[in-house]
């Protein structure tokens, strides 16, 4: 399908980006039909060939569309090729807006939650086009403003795809040129040409100047593009080729390539507070993980940032501080997508900022915010955990065999507490690759003298018959009672249900959300697929090493999954022990209390 118009100047319109749903192998597609990864290579030369002016619609002939393709809504129709009219560039920009994840700068902005699917970028631009950008420039500014608004609105749940651009392209050398796509992975449906990327870069720089809130990422791109190009190319190839179609709407980061860049930028980021930066790095490297841990780290970083904050002259503290927090949040999203607990905490903080009485002086306001943050952490997390432990203890009896999965901070507290009270029980810790979080928990439990058994998730149906209770943690619980937790939790809960064993999920109330999730696909987080390929310490299991370039192999490393409510017997929160059907009651009744 898609023949991407390479240079904006020549291309009149934009090929609609068509998204395929389901698992597709690249070979199955015909040449003209678009195809990500694999076809990109072939597509790359095509745009240049057709730059002379095949009609933009060439790839769109109905015949080339497979039934599952979903043509995205398009702003403008194709224009005659070779006529870089303002209309054309306008439409092009329009498309950009909807689809492309522009280079990092706009990555944050361009994220329209509702149009989340298409991450695509590669708006080709060529350097010679610079003179044509007057109207494009204006559109760019508009787009940037709109995007800034959207970014502020969607700080919570946006799945930002920080993907690198392009598609993965095998056209790495082409991409070596600047393009921002450096941090983004994209879902290329369309091959982009280098030239177009350049143009986008330039537009972004302009946007930069116009925007009030400085975008931290942009600077990375500008300086590091070239350095990263090579690294990126290698990583990109494997990402692009091995991305699973069904999860295209989720961002996938180029692991390993961002960290050194970010680290070196530490002292150059004026707008970014160092503690926020530090927390971002910790997320990126995986040092801080777990819902509570990440939320507390983020709130403490914000507390520091608020402490050092000084209202610029002629600005209102509430608005400016909110904008600043939003920019910090955008940065953190770049490092790692927000967890639901973090989203709720951010909502709380913004709520508190908005409710500050205008008569307070700056120092009073700052002190009040800091104490609010302290209170939130204390009441909603630390004390809530203690209450949960006190409820859960009543369900742990002597001679119980408790099973837990992964490493949840609350479940660990329950087990410690039960052990201190002298109950006689033993624990089965179930673990799974690639994170192997259970090992840390196992070590800590054994050090305390608790009788433990360790097994992997593929053995749970073997060990489940002797279990009396299953304790699980959760990243969040949604309104329909679905438990959103570490991948693998759903399997453990379902096996326990099949054996008739009660499943108790322990979760603080601040992690509840009014959203509804029906499956694990719409909203998830993709981890580094390379970790699946390699088993640390076992070089002989590297069978997949040579297949990374194979188009038929797609790697998927999910981080979360959704457990339906019928497999959960009870939810233990700081509001007591509830059935899963009562989660919306808590969200409804205590929404004011939760956010105040």
């Amino acid at each position: 399908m898609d023949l991407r118009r390479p240079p904006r100047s020549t291309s009149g319109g934009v090929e609609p980006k068509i998204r395929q749903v389901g698992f597709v192998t690249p070979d199955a597609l015909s040449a003209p039909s678009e195809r990500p990864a694999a076809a990109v290579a072939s597509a790359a030369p095509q745009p240049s060939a057709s730059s002379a002016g095949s009609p933009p619609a060439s790839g769109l002939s109905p015949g080339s569309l497979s039934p599952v393709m979903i043509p995205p809504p398009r702003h403008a129709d194709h224009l005659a090729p070779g006529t870089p009219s303002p209309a054309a560039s306008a439409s092009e920009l329009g498309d950009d807006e909807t689809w492309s994840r522009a280079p990092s700068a706009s990555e944050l902005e361009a994220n329209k939650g509702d149009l989340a699917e298409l991450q695509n970028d590669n708006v080709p631009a060529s350097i010679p086009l610079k003179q044509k950008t007057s109207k494009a420039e204006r559109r760019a500014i508009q787009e940037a403003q709109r995007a800034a608004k959207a970014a502020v609105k969607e700080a919570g749940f946006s799945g930002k795809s920080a993907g690198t651009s392009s598609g993965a392209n095998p056209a790495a050398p082409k991409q070596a040129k600047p393009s921002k796509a450096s941090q983004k992975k994209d879902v290329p449906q369309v091959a982009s040409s280098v030239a177009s990327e350049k143009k986008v870069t330039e537009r972004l720089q302009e946007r930069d100047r116009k925007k009030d809130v400085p975008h931290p990422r942009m600077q990375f791109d500008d300086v590091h593009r070239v350095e990263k190009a090579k690294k990126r190319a290698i990583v990109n190839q494997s990402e692009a080729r091995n991305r699973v179609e069904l999860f295209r709407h989720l961002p996938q980061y180029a692991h390993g390539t961002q960290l050194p860049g970010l680290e070196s930028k530490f002292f150059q980021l004026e707008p970014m507070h160092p503690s926020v930066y530090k927390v971002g790095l910790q997320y990126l490297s995986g040092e801080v993980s777990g819902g509570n841990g990440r939320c507390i780290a983020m709130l403490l970083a914000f507390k520091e940032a608020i402490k050092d904050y000084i209202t610029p002259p002629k600005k209102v503290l509430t608005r400016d501080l909110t904008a600043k927090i939003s920019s910090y949040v955008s940065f953190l999203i770049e490092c790692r997508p927000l967890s639901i607990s973090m989203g709720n905490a951010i909502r709380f903080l913004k709520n508190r900022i908005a409710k500050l009485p205008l008569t307070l002086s700056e120092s009073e306001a700052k002190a009040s915010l800091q104490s609010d943050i302290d209170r939130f952490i204390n009441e909603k997390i630390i004390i809530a955990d203690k209450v949960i432990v006190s409820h859960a203890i009543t369900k742990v009896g002597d001679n119980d065999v408790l099973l837990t999965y992964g490493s949840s901070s609350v479940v660990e507290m329950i087990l410690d507490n039960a052990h201190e009270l002298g109950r006689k029980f033993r624990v089965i810790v179930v673990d799974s690759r690639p994170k192997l979080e259970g090992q840390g928990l196992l070590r800590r439990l054994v050090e305390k003298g608790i009788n433990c058994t360790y097994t992997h998730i593929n053995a749970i149906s073997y060990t489940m018959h002797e279990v009396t209770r299953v304790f699980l943690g959760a990243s969040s619980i949604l309104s329909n009672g679905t438990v959103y937790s570490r991948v693998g939790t759903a399997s453990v809960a379902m096996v326990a249900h099949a054996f008739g064993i009660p499943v108790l999920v322990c979760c603080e109330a601040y992690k509840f959300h009014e959203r509804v999730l029906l499956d694990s696909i719409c909203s998830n987080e993709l981890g580094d697929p390379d970790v699946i390929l390699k088993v640390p310490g076992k070089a002989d299991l590297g069978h997949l090493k040579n297949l990374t370039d194979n188009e038929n192999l797609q790697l998927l490393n999910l981080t979360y999954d959704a457990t339906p409510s019928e497999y959960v017997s009870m939810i233990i929160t700081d509001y007591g022990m509830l059935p899963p059907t009562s989660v919306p009651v808590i969200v409804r009744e205590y929404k004011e209390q939760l956010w105040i």
Partner: protein
Amino acid sequence: MEPDAAQNPNPNPGPPPISAYYQTRAEHHAVISSDWLAHAAAAASLPSSDADADAAAPLPSPGSNGGGVIEEFNFWRRKPEAAEAVAAIMALAAVIRSSRATTMMELEIELKKASDKLKSWDATSISLSAACDLFMRFVTRTSHLEHEKFDAAKSRLIERGEKFGEISLKARKTIAMLSQDFISDGCTILVHGYSRVVLEVLKLAASNRKLFRVLCTEGRPDRTGLRMSNELAALDIPVKVLIDSAVAYSMDEVDMVFVGADGVVESGGIINMMGTYQIALVAHSMNKPVYVAAESYKFARLYPLDQKDMTPAHRPIDFGVPIPAGVEVETSARDYTPPQYLTLLLTDLGVLTPSVVSDELIQLYL
């Protein structure tokens, strides 16, 4: 519930305590067995076996001491129509009325003491402790208590307390009215054991000239089902008695199952006389609806995960022949039916689905 349940979830290692709750029911239901007589004689704290309604007994003046509460409680309890829980509620309302406290705090402490005393009278009765807790919450939940003078606050508390008592007394009538829609002409209803609420429902249906018939389980070991069938026959309702094991056999001809409840737990499930879980399972597998008629003061803040997760309540079983010494007998008096086997709860708050119980409890308690 037992205050130290958290510390000791296991049943007592000693001989199982006889549940006073079930003994009282036997007393009310005029079913006397030799075992029961022996235990009744042994338990000095229980009143003599005086099953007749004794409304003429003088009302002892309830002082502000705990002993007064028990007397008042016993007074109300002797009416066979009154549930224990309702008696407790009326007793507590009387405590407020006759209290000599001068501050809110004092009054609340007095109420708490009285409530604890009532609860300890029988630690295994779920509805009793649930009703006491609910009464306390309902009464003390008024928000502007702190701002008023004490007398005004006290009279408001008395008002709320008596209102709660009235609601509870009338609960059965409300439930009976609500259930009329569910009983249609020509239907067959299965009931289990002797439940006064269910009896009220069927009484009202009969007086509304509905034509239906009832299958009644025997309800061993105290054979309360026989008493139920007596009452139903007296109302001219066609009744058939089944032994407990014949429930699955007869389930085909049954249109719906009506049971009462000793307590409704937070998950929406019920704790009721032994055998209810079995019936609910059979009904569920044959797609027959199971309706639970339970007053709202029975909503308890418990959440059993399985059958053994409750405080045990035992009742001696009389097999008619002596059991050899080495043989153990399962004497538990009640079981827990999880919410997925129940269709609807008919309560004085309305007709509810099991998941609403938690909703109500959250609103009241949190």
